[in-house]
């Protein structure tokens, strides 16, 4: 059974801190790994990482895929209160798959 595990499940830091969120996976026929940010309602897309694109960066957010360790990290530097959200990791896997397996999510709280 395909499995995606995120850690920590919850994290509270002060504004300005740097955080690292973890995602590990055990899946058959890995195709891609995606990160989403969920504030109050719908998840919004952050990054997609594949074998041909193992590192992505956008502003203060960056993500790396480690195919050897079957894991990914999401880094956020100089955190702001607006970064408070649930961060979801998802993996596309399986033969002929057109669906994602999600992790439990990490609830990140940034205190001023």
């Amino acid at each position, binding site marked *: 059974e395909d499995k995606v595990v995120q850690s920590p499940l919850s994290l509270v830091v002060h504004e300005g801190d740097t955080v690292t969120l973890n995602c590990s996976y055990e899946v058959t026929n890995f195709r891609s790994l*995606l990160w*989403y940010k969920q504030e109050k309602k*719908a*998840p919004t897309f952050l990054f997609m990482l594949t074998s041909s694109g193992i590192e992505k960066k956008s502003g203060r957010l960056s993500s790396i895929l480690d195919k050897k360790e079957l894991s990914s990290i999401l880094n956020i530097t100089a955190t702001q209160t607006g970064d408070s959200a649930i961060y*979801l990791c998802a993996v596309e896997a399986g033969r002929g798959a*057109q*669906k994602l397996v*999600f*992790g439990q999510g990490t609830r990140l709280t940034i205190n001023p």
Partner: protein
Amino acid sequence: NAGVTQTPKFRVLKTGQSMTLLCAQDMNHEYMYWYRQDPGMGLRLIHYSVGEGTTAKGEVPDGYNVSRLKKQNFLLGLESAAPSQTSVYFCASTLDGVTGELFFGEGSRLTVL
């Protein structure tokens, strides 16, 4: 430009009642998905569709049925609601499968008493 729209946004049901959640997208996407989100469990796939007239089971399909009679609409039905189906339901769509990003609706919160 509405994107992905779900109706209703909130609903309270009694055990045994039936209902249908409607998902509509105006982006001409081929692939549509229904997920449920429960605390501490992330998003779990219920059913999905890779095109008009097609449906397939996801991780947690029991107790749900779906239909995709029109490309823009994906319906999720509960024939006999149970308290275990209390959850937030998200519809999502993508043009070319999940090698592209998923576009999510804003969610429908369902409570079964």
